[in-house]
């Protein structure tokens, strides 16, 4: 992959941010329960310092806005941003267009962790913290560490060995998860509910849980985006330029894994975001990571906010699984971008 050098231009970022702001605003104004847009805007403005407005929302409607709709929009944005950014990072690190955030066993590990917590975990209904996201997070991280350890033990520290060991680890963890599910069949329902992905029950608690990981991983990956461009020419060429490819890979994979694990922990397995968003950005704005990483982050947030808007309104007052929406709208959209952007080399 030859990467055209690109400076970080402000134009595309400003454009993407405007799209994100618009998507977020739309998602706050529209929902399964109709709240008057004017009243919502007045209610939001009322929280700004020095502004005093009365929105006319009932306490019940205010609770719907502040405790159900807003945290869901914020969490959708955070999860989308992290998955898209992690996807862009993985694709860069492995020089593989099919790499996604779940490639190295993060999804399988999280799935096993969640299943174990549901099947054998203590009754946490009286605990101040929920065990499930912690177990999913730990499982995702453990899965990737396992893949890394296996890849290194093979001797050759190339991207391909790492991917292959990721496949092996994922297959193994999935087998264990399936076994546990069959043994504890009464947990099937909860496990599948988790796997399908859920922003349904998102609250500020989940947002607070995710924010630290989002900040740290975004900072690390953004700081490494130039090195990802160097890495794109190949390990040997990169080392001749003075770059320790394996080390950069380790740091970026660690940060992307942290982001993926945090996203999966609060929202289950939401597919497609980590592949579609970076590729679309690449087709529109080129493949330099200097632009790709921040743009994927912003576009991923906008994409998942809009996908969730569809998930909660199209069949309202029923919900659609978010993973169905991301795949249903994501795949054709991706095909469209592929067609229109063919002229880009």
């Amino acid at each position, binding site marked *: 992959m030859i990467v055209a050098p690109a400076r970080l231009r402000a134009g595309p970022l400003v454009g993407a941010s405007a799209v994100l702001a618009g998507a977020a605003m739309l998602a706050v104004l529209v929902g399964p329960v109709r709240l008057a847009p004017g009243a919502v805007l007045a209610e939001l403005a009322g929280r700004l310092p020095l502004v005093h407005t009365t929105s006319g929302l009932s306490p019940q409607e205010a609770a719907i806005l502040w405790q*159900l709709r807003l945290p869901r929009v914020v969490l959708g944005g955070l999860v989308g941003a992290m998955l898209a950014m992690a996807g862009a990072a993985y694709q860069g690190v492995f020089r593989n267009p099919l790499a996604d955030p779940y490639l190295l066993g993060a999804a399988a590990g999280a799935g096993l962790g969640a299943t174990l917590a549901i099947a054998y975990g203590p009754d946490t209904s009286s605990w101040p913290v929920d065990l499930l996201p912690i177990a999913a997070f730990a499982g995702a991280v453990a899965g990737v560490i396992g893949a890394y350890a296996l890849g290194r033990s093979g001797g050759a520290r190339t991207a391909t060995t790492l991917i292959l060991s990721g496949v092996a680890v994922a297959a193994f963890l999935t087998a264990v998860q399936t076994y546990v599910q069959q043994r504890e069949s009464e947990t099937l329902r909860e496990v599948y509910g988790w796997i399908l992905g859920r922003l349904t029950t998102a609250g500020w608690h989940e947002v607070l849980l995710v924010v630290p990981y989002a900040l740290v991983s975004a900072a690390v990956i953004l700081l490494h985006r130039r090195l990802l461009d160097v890495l794109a020419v190949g390990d040997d060429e990169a080392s001749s330029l003075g770059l320790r490819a394996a080390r950069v890979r380790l740091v970026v994979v660690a940060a992307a894994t942290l982001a993926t694990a945090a996203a999966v922990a609060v929202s289950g397995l939401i597919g497609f975001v980590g592949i579609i968003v970076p590729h679309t950005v690449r087709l529109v704005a080129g493949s330099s990571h200097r632009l790709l990483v921040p743009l994927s982050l912003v576009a991923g947030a906008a994409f998942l906010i809009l996908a969730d808007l569809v998930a909660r309104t199209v*069949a309202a007052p029923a919900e659609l699984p978010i993973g169905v929406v991301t795949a249903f709208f994501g795949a054709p959209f991706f095909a469209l971008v592929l067609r229109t952007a063919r002229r880009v080399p």
Partner: protein
Amino acid sequence: MRRSLAPLLLLVLALVAAGCGNDGSRSGAAAPGGQGAAFPVTIDAAGGKLVLARQPQRIVSMSPTATEMLFGIAAGGQVAAVDSNSNYPREAPRTDLSAYEPNLEAIAGYKPDLVVYSDDPGELAAGLHKLGIPALRQPAARTLDDTYAQLDQLGRATGHPAEATRLVAAMRSEIHKLAAARPARPLTYYHELDKNLYSATSKTFIGQLYGQLGMRNIADAADKDGSGYPQLSAEYVVKADPDLIFLADTKCCGQTARTVAARDGWDQLTAVRTGAVVALDDDVASRWGPRVVDFLKTVSAKVQSLEAVGR
């Protein structure tokens, strides 16, 4: 003296006879060919006609509901093994047979002369047929009448038709009584299947039971595709503000009135504020056997208590 002796003697005889009858129905399992049992019997089962030459004495139940029904009609003594989820009644011979992944060899190992099951995820029926083991399919009931029909069917298949008839009559009269006591104003309710707000509409079996008490289901509005089990959005539940919340995810997912009250935005709900969040037994709320009466009693008691405080 002699005149007054005759009625007394009759009374004693009647009591003894009644006592025997009761005894007989409770442990009727042990007595092959209890009242009205005449084999062979032919049963119009869900999977086709089933002919039983002799009264089954080694029944394997692969369905928790069928297990409850078998014990309810005094056929418990003829049950050799029940599947891993058949946790009621306690005396049922629970094994690790899985109804999700039925293992034909393991089932055959109990040398059954009748297998009762509700779902066939694979080749269970075909396999049993090959082994010459009679199999009776009793799928999930869609209405109370299905439940009654299945009880009658099990009664005939096991040689306890009279006990089955008696149980059905008792259930009908109990449910009739509970339905008669329903409040004038229909109460609204939300029946929760899991934490992700999956619910059951009034068309489902469980929904029809609430319907017996004249209650209105908030999930109906969300079921445009008619699946019967829509996933509700939290915004909608808060807006609908049901009078009652029933949790059928207490055992599976550890939900309680307290965890519901702690959910974001749910402290607004009338049911949360008035203590009208009812923790159900997941099993009772998901089976269609004799314990539907217990379920209705739980719901009815809560409805009555809400009425009593004048809401």
